[in-house]
């Protein structure tokens, strides 16, 4: 048993509790994904609080209005069933927002009382009142997983919905034939900031490749100021475009730790036989190489000069800072794919990853992290299904000097005063999370610079006093001799 395996044994200090949670719930993830679709609203079937909490977190992170409806289940709805509430809710929502897509999500409450949203949605659809709206039921019990599972599941269920719709429209029985054969690729993104998505578009543009990115929050959740406010965004993936996903040449799924059963790429492979390329988020030189090289190989092309130059610049930046990087004792926490890719960036720069933690439960995370650390002959504390109480103690024990993760790490930052870069979701105590760039060679070098600069500040601040205290000795003998 390796040291890592030993360290892996206990994920949380408390057995029966999560103390200071490092994860959120499925409806949150699904809500995030839905924001990447054009003229899309969602209604959360449950008590009023669920939608409000999710809205509050997203509004604080993106600094954008986040409108999400709730079926506002009451005691009566809980006892006698909430179908009536949900139907009224859908009707109000459609009248007020005139969306093209409505995601109908469940909650802990709805699932526990056994609400059958599929059949409720079917009844609404069959009533013919809202035939122009695509009502998509997505089952997201809060206790069923973390936000990561909810995110991928929402994308997958949307793809499923449009598959069925296409089958219905074309009267296809068993075999689904793509409407057209495209030369484009699908790119399923997760953990991407709005700027990250714009960067992916730029990179594939440089390669002359047409990419169908989904979901695409880049304009919806980082909307320019306009003289008239439009409460339902016209940006994002439009429902007419979704069919493109079924006719792509290949699918690249960014983030490869999620279980297959949630994976949109796996779904597209199974149903449409579209080649699936699962890979980590393009953060760090290795992972960005893999992303760029995969696209190049799909199209049998050379990597464009401009991108090679960007890679060269990142390499140059890594060399410039390598000695400083080596002083990093890093803690990473948050989404599992994000932590995994940031670990790779740290390791390739010679930083020590002391603590890497996710609140999601996924043993793949541990195995892959272990392999990654092993490749550099390093060990670190790897935690999955963990909480911040545990992460906090490990960070102190491991003498970490830089933390990277979402804002809930602020509690540790406040108590320990360890430098802290906010990356991930949610970021509610800093501004601008939506326009940060982490993906690609450019994003990687920015993140690296930010990390290294904090390490440099640590070295420079108090440097004179430290050296003085350590080495300066007053020449006492001389004084003695004078007296």
């Amino acid at each position, binding site marked *: 048993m390796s040291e890592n395996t030993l360290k892996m044994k206990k994920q949380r200090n*408390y*057995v*029966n*509790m*999560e*103390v*200071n*949670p490092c*994860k*959120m*719930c499925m409806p949150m993830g699904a809500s995030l994904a839905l924001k990447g679709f054009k003229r899309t609203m969602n*209604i959360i079937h*449950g*008590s*009023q*609080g*669920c939608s*409000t*909490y999710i809205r*509050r977190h997203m*509004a604080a992170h*993106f*600094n*954008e*209005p*986040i*409108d*999400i*409806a*709730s079926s*506002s*289940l*009451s*005691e009566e709805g*809980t006892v006698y069933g909430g179908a009536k*509430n*949900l139907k*009224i*809710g859908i009707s*109000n*929502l459609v*009248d*007020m*927002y*005139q969306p093209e897509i409505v995601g109908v999500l469940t*909650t*802990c*409450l709805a*699932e526990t009382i056994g609400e059958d949203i599929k059949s409720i949605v079917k009844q609404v659809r069959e009533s013919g009142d809202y035939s122009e709206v695509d009502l998509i039921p997505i089952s997201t*019990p*809060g*206790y069923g997983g*973390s936000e990561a599972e909810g995110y991928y599941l929402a994308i997958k269920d949307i793809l499923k919905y449009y598959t069925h719709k296409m089958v219905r429209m074309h009267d296809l029985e068993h075999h689904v034939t793509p409407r057209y054969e495209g030369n484009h690729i699908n790119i399923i993104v997760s953990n991407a900031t709005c700027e990250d998505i714009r960067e992916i578009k730029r990179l594939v543009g440089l390669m002359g490749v047409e990419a169908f990115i989904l979901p695409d929050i880049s304009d919806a959740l980082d909307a320019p*100021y306009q*003289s008239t*406010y439009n*409460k339902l965004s016209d940006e994002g993936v439009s429902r007419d475009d979704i069919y493109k996903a079924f006719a792509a040449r290949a699918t690249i799924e960014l983030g490869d730790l999620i279980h297959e059963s949630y994976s949109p790429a796996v779904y597209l492979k199974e149903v449409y036989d579209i080649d699936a390329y699962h890979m980590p988020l393009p953060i760090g030189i290795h992972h960005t190489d893999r992303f760029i090289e995969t696209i190049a190989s799909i199209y049998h092309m050379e990597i464009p000069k401009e991108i090679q130059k960007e890679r060269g610049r990142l390499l140059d930046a890594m060399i410039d800072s390598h000695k400083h990087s080596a002083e990093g004792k890093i803690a990473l926490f948050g989404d599992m794919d994000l932590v995994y890719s940031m670990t790779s960036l740290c390791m390739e720069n010679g930083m020590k990853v002391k603590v890497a933690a996710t*609140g999601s439960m996924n043993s793949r995370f541990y195995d892959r992290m272990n392999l990654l650390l092993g490749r550099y002959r390093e060990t670190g504390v790897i935690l999955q299904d963990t909480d911040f109480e545990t992460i906090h103690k490990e960070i102190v024990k491991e003498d970490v000097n830089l933390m990277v993760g979402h804002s*809930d790490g602020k*509690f540790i930052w406040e108590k320990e005063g360890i430098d802290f870069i906010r990356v991930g979701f949610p970021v509610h105590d800093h501004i601008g999370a939506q326009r940060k760039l982490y993906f690609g060679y450019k994003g990687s070098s920015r993140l690296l610079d930010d990390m290294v600069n904090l390490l440099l500040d640590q070295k420079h601040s108090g440097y004179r006093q430290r050296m003085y205290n350590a080495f300066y000795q007053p020449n006492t003998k001389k004084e003695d001799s004078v007296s």
Partner: protein
Amino acid sequence: MRNVQASNQTVIANQREAHIVVNEKQQHQEIVCDTHSVSGVVSQRACVYCGARVVLNPITDAAHIVHGPIGCASYTWDIRGSLSSGSERYRMSFSTDLREQDIIFGGEKKLIGAIDEIVENEHPEVIFIYSTCVVGVIGDDVVAIAKKAEEKYNIRVIPVNSSGFSGSKKDGYKAACRAILSLMGPRDEIMNDGPIPHSLNYLGDFNLAGEAWIIRNYLETIGLKLISVFTGDSSSKSLKDAKQASLNVVQCAGSMTFLARQMKEQYDIPFEHVRFVGIEDTIRSLRKIVYSIGTSEHVERFEALIEEKSKEYIPQVEAVKERLIGKKVAIYVGGGFKAISLIEQFADLGIETVLIGTQTGTKEEYESLKALTKEGTVILDDTNPTELEYFMKQTKADILVGGVKERPLAYKMGVAFIDHNHERKHPLAGFEGALNFALEVDKTVNSPVWNLIKGGK
């Protein structure tokens, strides 16, 4: 309010019409409020659990266990700005993190284990167990578990009946008040000597950014004894001692009037309403207290205090006021108390309220809102972003007051914004707060950024 439509989109859903009133002084107008939110219209309200958590969480030395799935705990962890002079335990988020298995087989075992672990590691004197939606459905017997734990450990373990769906946020306040009453317990020997002279409790301040400390300073300068704040910077001990007070003063009426009534009934403590928001109200409230439980000596000290503070702060506020006169404000906040005090605070700065609304206001509070505002003012109960946007445009508001969810709406509309939420990092109470408030209004409404979006330079 019928048939308001922007293009062919509904602005006001049918079931919402009765929740909206345009102030007509000559008319008797009834607003429908205090009802369950309308489904699908994007209400800004939270849930019962949230209400209970807001009120109880500032009790600093208590261990607060959220019995439910992780979301409920995750979204409410340490997002409030309540400060403590003692224990930091209240900032820890303990949750049983119920999973699928627990939903099927019940969460009781986990909860019992959780209590054992907290007692072993934290040794709290009191544990609050918040029930969330699913707990109400899967039938965990939280009351029995709490009772057993009290016997086993000889501490207080108090269930908070706060299943999210079982009402509105206000029902959560009530659940919290019941939990506090349970903590204080029946009349006992500490009450034998009668109430402590010149002593009081201060109900309905959560010590955001040290607000309760500001008020405590005033009271102590005057020579009065503040036994406990409910619940900002309180402890299980201070709350138990609160039974000895001569007077309860209530600020946040929505959350605490119920408790004040109960304390009057059970412990014979009379109560008065106060408001430490804005300079005038602060002086008025202190005067009320001093004349109620003080002596002539206290009155003298009170006069000296307000003279000194007025000298220091009024000129500063007046200097800012010059830059604000004539602006219009839209206000959408949680409770009626906050709404009423904000109207007056803005009026003090020469700013007229053109839209006012609350999530959980009562009929009486809406009457006050009507009385305090001009003809034509839009009054909204449990509103939503669509209505807010429509009426802000219609009333040409320059400023919106609200919470985190409303802020980006204001900014997208090119409107200034005042944060009136539990996360703010600056106190708005007393003289100090009145100045902060004026400065905040000035910072936002007079920012050069608005010139840019209006096409200026």
